[in-house]
C-alpha cells in the first residue's frame, strides 16, 4: 500500500483511476443487469399448417391479429403489426429466423437478435401457416443460396449499385432517417439475405425476381461471403465504417501520442 500511496500524485494516477472506475461500473452493471425475460413456451415440434396456426395465435396474434389481419394501436395511424396475408413463407423465415420476431417491445425497428425464440421446425410451421393465407415468396432452396455457385465479381457490382448506399461498401450497415438503420450483413446466412431481398423487410425495398434475378441474388450472397471471409492486409478495419471511425482513431491515438511526446520533451530530466 505504501508504494501505491507514494505514487498517488503521479501524472498517470488520474487516468488509471478513471479507467478503473469505468471498468468497475461496467462490470457491476453487467453482473446486476436483469436478463431479458423469455416468456416463450416451448411447444412440441409442429409441421402442419394447423400447428403453425396455434403457434401463431400463441405468439404473434397480439400484434398481428388472430387471423393475421394486422392490428392498429388505436394511436393515430400507428399499427401494432401489419397484415401478413401475402408476405409469404420467406418473410416469416427471415423475421423469425433472425430473431427479429417476435419483437420484445415496440420500437422504431425490429433488431436482429442472437436468441432465436423458435426451433427451425416451429418456424417452418409458422411459415406454412402464413403462406397458406395468400401466395407470397417462398423459402429459397439450398442451391439457390449456395455462395460457391455464385459469381462474387458480378455480385460485387450489383451490391455497389443496389445495396451499398444503405448497407455500406463492406456490408457494415448504416444509418437511415429518424432512428432507423440498415443492419450489418456480417455473418448473416445466405438464406436470410435472399429472403430479405425477396420480401423487403421493414424499410428495405423489395427486390423481386424481375428486378434481381435469382442468379444475381446468389451472386450477391457469394460476394458477401467473400468479403466476410477475406483477411485484411491493411490491418485493423475499424468496423469498415469509413471516415468517422478512421478520423476518430487518428484524433484520439495520433494526437494522443503527439501530446504525450510533447509533454515528455518539455519535462525536465530528474
Amino acid at each position, binding site marked *: 500500500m505504501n508504494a501505491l500511496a507514494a505514487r498517488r500524485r503521479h501524472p498517470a494516477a488520474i487516468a488509471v483511476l478513471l479507467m478503473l472506475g469505468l471498468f468497475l461500473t461496467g462490470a457491476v452493471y453487467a453482473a446486476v443487469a436483469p436478463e431479458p425475460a423469455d416468456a416463450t413456451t416451448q411447444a412440441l415440434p409442429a409441421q402442419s399448417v394447423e400447428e403453425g396456426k396455434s403457434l401463431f395465435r400463441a405468439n404473434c396474434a397480439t400484434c398481428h391479429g388472430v387471423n393475421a389481419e394486422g392490428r392498429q394501436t388505436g394511436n393515430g395511424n400507428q399499427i401494432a403489426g401489419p397484415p401478413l396475408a401475402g408476405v409469404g413463407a420467406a418473410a416469416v423465415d427471415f423475421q423469425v429466423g433472425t430473431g427479429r420476431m417476435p419483437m420484445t417491445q415496440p420500437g422504431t425497428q425490429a433488431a436482429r437478435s442472437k436468441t432465436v425464440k423458435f426451433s427451425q421446425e416451429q418456424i417452418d410451421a409458422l411459415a406454412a401457416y402464413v403462406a397458406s393465407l395468400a401466395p407470397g415468396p417462398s423459402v429459397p432452396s439450398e442451391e439457390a443460396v449456395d455462395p460457391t455457385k455464385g459469381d462474387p465479381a458480378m455480385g460485387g457490382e450489383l451490391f455497389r449499385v443496389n445495396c451499398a*448506399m444503405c448497407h455500406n461498401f463492406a456490408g457494415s450497415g448504416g444509418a437511415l432517417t429518424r432512428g432507423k438503420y440498415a443492419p450489418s450483413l456480417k455473418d448473416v446466412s445466405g438464406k436470410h439475405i435472399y429472403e430479405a431481398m425477396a420480401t423487403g423487410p421493414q424499410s428495405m425495398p423489395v427486390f423481386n425476381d424481375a*428486378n434481381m434475378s435469382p442468379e444475381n441474388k446468389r451472386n450477391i450472397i457469394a460476394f458477401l461471403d467473400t468479403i466476410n471471409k477475406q*483477411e485484411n*492486409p491493411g490491418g485493423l478495419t475499424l468496423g469498415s465504417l469509413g471516415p468517422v471511425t478512421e478520423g476518430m482513431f487518428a484524433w484520439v491515438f495520433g494526437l494522443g501520442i503527439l501530446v504525450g511526446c510533447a509533454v515528455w520533451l518539455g519535462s525536465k530530466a530528474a
Partner: protein
Amino acid sequence: MNEQDHTAPGTEVTPTDGHGSAVRLDEGHVVGTGGLPERFTNPGLPTHVPRMADLDEAAARRAEKQVATLFGISILGTLLFIVLYFALDVNQTVFVPGVGETSATNVGLGVCLALSLLGIGLGAVHWAKTLMPDHEVVEERHPMRASDADRAEAVRVLTEEGGKSQITRRPLIKYTLGGAMALFPLGLALQVGGSLGPMPQKSLSLTWWNGGPSGPGEEPTFKPLRLMKDPENEPIKASDVTIGSVFHVMPEGLLPNPETGEGGAKHLLEEKAKAAVLLMRLDPSQIQSQKELAWGHEGIVAYSKICTHVGCPVGLYEQQTHHLLCPCHQSTFDVTQDCKVIFGPAKRPLPQLKITVDDEGYLVSAQPFREAVGPSFWERGQ
C-alpha cells in the same frame, strides 16, 4: 544588441507611460487598491537545478547505457527490417490479436521501421535531457533596425550606383522591363486556366435522357428511351415493378453490353453521373402530387438520383416511409410529395422524369428532365 531594451536580472524595470487609448495594466479588473506598485523587480531566471547525471557518475553511466540501448534497438530494427524484407512472402498473413489475419509484410516491416526510427528519436531526446549541458542561457533578440552605416550605404547604392546603371536616364529600359515583368505571369495563368478543359456549354442542363450523348457541344434530339436496369442493362417491364420495389436505372444506350462490353457512352462516367434515375412504385393513393401521378405510370415514378445539394447519389429509399435519404449530408426527400425536401441542406426537390410504357409494356421516358439535375450552378434555368 540594443542596450536600452535590456535590463539585467535583479535590476528594476521602470514603468513607462501607456500609449494612446490602450488599456493599461492598472485599469479594468484589478484586485486590491487598484494601483500598481511603483517598481517591479525583475525576477530573473529560476535557479539552476542540477540533474542526477550531473551529480552522480553512476547515474550518468546509467543514462549513457539507456541512450546506447535505444540506439541499439534502432540498429536491430533496421537489420530485422532488411532480413524480413527478404524473408517474408508478400502474400503471407499473420494473426495479430485484436486485428485478425493481416499481411505479414505490413506488420513486420512496419514494426521494424517504427523501432528503427523511434530508437534514434527517443535516444537523441534522452541523451539531450540527461547528459548534454542544460545550463540556462539567455539569447537576446536582435533589433530589427539595421545599423546606421548599413542604412546610409543602402541609400548610397540606390542613388549613386543606380545612377551608373542609367535606369533614370534611359526610360525605354525601365518601361520595357516593367512590361516584361507584368506580362510574364500571364503565361502561367493561361496554362492553369486552359488546362481546366472546355467550357461546359449546355452540358450541365442536358442529360442522356435528352436523346443521347449530352457532353459539351452535343445537340441531342429527344426520342423516347427505355429505362434500363443498372448494371444488367435490361429493359424494365411496368408489370415487374411491384409496390415497394426500387430499381436503379440508366437510359437505353448509355451502358455497354454487360456480356461483350461493347457499345455504350463514350464518356460513360460523365453521362452516368447526370442520367442516374431511381424508379419506385408506390400505391397511387399515397401520392399527394397530381403532377407526380401524371408524370408516372400507375404509381411508378422515376426521379433523378443526383442530390440537388452537391450531387451525391440519393439512393437510400425507405419503402415504408417513402423517404429518400442522401447519405452525404442527410438531405431527405419525400417521394409522396414530389420529392420535396423535408430535411437537410438540399434546397430544391429532385427532378422527376416523365415516363410511360411502350407497345411491348416496357417503361420509356416521355420527355427529358425539364430542369437541370444535380446541384445549382450560375447559368441554371437560362
